[in-house]
């Protein structure tokens, strides 16, 4: 039986690749995924023959992908549902495969061509369609309104999330949206589903991310300094999942449960974390993540973000690549890649000073967190 602390630094990321981000109708999620995979292999100093495990997300067929790249030595594989909640789940599945000897070196590949095929998030048939309720944004708007009613959170406070991440994206040449905006600009942006505005919503773009993972002992002789998975945990909440989440919870109980496990697992506390990567599909999720993980008291996420703590140079630089709100909609994967690059110290203008430990947090019906350290 392996407990949380025995997983500490047992596996690691040894390669990362991120494709170009934008609108690329001339290719698709296979083409982009392979572009990212080749970058990740090159980054790791490995070839495809070193890969014996493959985890695939949002690419339609794992079989077709392995066929396209002529993978010969595969002994482990998994295709995950195309949703953001699967980002840390994929890392957890790779960790388990590596620790149990099912695989020696796993490639994790995410590809998304939602922009060029005009994926439209909302308007499909569904249980609440007779009342006109649809879209992930509306589900988060429902939570945001409740948070406002319970705790006095404001739209301006939510604006600080996107404004801060946009300032980070301005330092990231690969980010899709790089023009800074002010709180006034945020307040002037139109409502999509009130109380959420256009600038509270993530962008939609094509792109791909690939990660190469192996065990700590195998990584010793590899090209890159390993970025260790120091702890990883998830907790699922499906009560009231017809509404996405229990309305007064904001995944707080799940995140508290994860918080109790990842810090113990990694042997650290919140104060040791140098930077955060928070799944920011919509701005309120950042508040829920900070509260649930214990970076601020429950209900005070709005005040906390408006104090500027998430900016580079401040206490908790967050989403230094610009996140989903500005860099790319890679459903958590690009945030994990950014965490690896931050602990390696490769981020140039947007590098967090003396960055040793970065925490990834995802608040969704599958909530999750990863502690990544050098």
């Amino acid at each position, binding site marked *: 039986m392996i407990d949380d602390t025995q997983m500490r630094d047992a596996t690691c990321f040894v390669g990362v690749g991120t494709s170009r981000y934008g609108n690329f109708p001339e290719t698709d999620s296979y083409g982009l995924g392979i572009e990212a995979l080749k970058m990740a292999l090159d980054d790791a100093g490995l070839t495809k023959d070193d890969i014996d495990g493959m985890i695939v997300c949002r690419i339609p067929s794992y079989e077709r992908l392995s066929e396209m790249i002529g993978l010969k030595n595969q002994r482990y594989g998994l295709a995950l549902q195309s949703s953001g909640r699967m980002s840390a789940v994929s890392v957890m599945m790779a960790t388990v495969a590596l620790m149990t000897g099912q695989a020696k070196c796993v490639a994790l590949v995410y590809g998304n061509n939602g922009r060029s095929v005009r994926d439209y998030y909302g*308007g499909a048939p569904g249980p609440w369609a007779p009342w*006109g309720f649809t879209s992930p944004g509306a589900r988060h708007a429902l*939570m945001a309104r409740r948070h406002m009613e319970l705790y006095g959170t404001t739209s301006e406070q939510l604006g600080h999330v996107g404004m801060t991440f946009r300032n980070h994206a301005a330092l990231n040449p690969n980010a899709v949206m790089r023009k800074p905006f002010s709180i006034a600009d945020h307040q002037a942006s139109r409502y999509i589903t009130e109380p959420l505005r256009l600038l509270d919503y993530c962008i939609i773009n094509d792109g791909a991310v690939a990660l190469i993972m192996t065990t700590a002992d195998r990584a010793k002789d590899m090209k890159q300094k390993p970025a260790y998975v120091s702890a990883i945990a998830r907790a699922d909440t499906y009560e009231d999942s017809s509404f996405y989440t229990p309305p007064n919870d904001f995944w707080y109980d799940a995140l508290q449960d994860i918080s109790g496990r990842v810090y113990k697992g990694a042997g650290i506390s919140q104060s040791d974390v140098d930077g955060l990567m928070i799944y920011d599909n919509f701005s309120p999720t950042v508040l829920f993540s900070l509260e649930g993980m214990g970076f601020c008291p429950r209900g005070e996420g709005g005040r906390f973000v408006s104090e500027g703590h998430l900016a580079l140079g401040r206490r908790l630089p967050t989403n230094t690549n610009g996140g989903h709100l500005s860099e790319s909609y890679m459903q958590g994967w690009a945030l994990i890649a950014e965490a690896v690059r931050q602990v390696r110290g490769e981020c140039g203008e947007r590098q967090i000073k003396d960055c040793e430990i970065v925490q990834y947090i995802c608040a969704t019906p599958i909530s999750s967190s990863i502690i990544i350290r050098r």
Partner: protein
Amino acid sequence: MSYTKPLPAIDNWNRPFWDATREQRLVAQACEPCGTVFFPPGPVCPHCLSAKLSWKQLSGRGTVESWVVFHQVYYKGFADEMPYNVAMIRLDEGARMLSNVVVPNDSLHADMRVEVVFAPATEELSIPKFRPLTPGEG
């Protein structure tokens, strides 16, 4: 004039709920052993897993817990009602549902007391919506 908004996808579990709307009754499943009232409908009680369920007529009253206002048209049938609200309503019997509150959007507030009203849709069903209860009405 034909009804242009989305119609419910009727399945084996929710058919009695929608059948009851034809008679302007709001019903939900109640668990006989433990008394849990739940919605959306399903095969067993989510609390105790009993399949001994009966359809209970509800008071039709509830409380607004949260709400949103749609400013983006996702369904053509709602286009001439923009912007429209959808509220999360906790029914007095304990179950929750999403519905429209027939009220100006800017007068919505948390803890608003509401009561069901039925909006005609087709010959087979109507759509349960809610209207505010005035103080003293409960």
